[in-house]
């Protein structure tokens, strides 16, 4: 099983190999994809990538939290959180690929 961490650089390298654009332009396109996805999510939209998965934004209500060290109560403001639901295809591929 792998232990490597891939970054934007690995994704742009893959784009560079696949399409043959310059490394610079490949990196810009990877950035543009992430930027468009982020912008949609920040606007409260869902981003649905077929056979990959769905990113959606959920509203969390305000609640009273507790500082685990001091035990003191602290108000937690209402906030928006992002959830990712992998597609069946991704779940199957990840399960199969990591099977011992």
């Amino acid at each position, binding site marked *: 099983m792998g232990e490597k*961490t891939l*970054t934007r650089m690995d994704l742009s390298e893959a784009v560079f190999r696949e399409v043959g654009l310059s490394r610079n332009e490949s990196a810009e396109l990877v950035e543009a994809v992430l930027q468009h996805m982020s912008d949609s999510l920040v606007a409260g939209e869902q981003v649905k*990538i077929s056979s990959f998965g769905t990113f959606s934004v959920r509203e969390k209500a305000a609640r009273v939290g507790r500082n685990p060290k001091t035990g003191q109560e602290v108000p937690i403001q209402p906030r928006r959180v992002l959830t*990712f639901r992998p597609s069946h295809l991704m779940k199957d*591929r*990840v399960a199969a690929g990591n099977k011992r």
Partner: protein
Amino acid sequence: MWGMIRSELIQKIADENPHLYQRDVERIVNTIFEEITNAMARGDRVELRGFGAFSVKKRDARVGRNPRTGESVEVEEKHVPFFKTGKLLRDRLNGK
């Protein structure tokens, strides 16, 4: 719920890059998602700073139950995809 799907994402990138063929833009966008899935299938992590990190989590074997019959069933150990939102995106979602 409204939102954006893969083809709309491809269209936006195509509109911003009139010098590229539509089919190349499709290949570019598909390659990005394919690379991420391939990495997780190998057990690797993908860290996209500011956006988030994709990783694989191990779920231990357990004894499950058939909800209809109540019968016990062995559920094998398995690996599942996981995504953690990056700090920058989390802050942007909350108007910071």
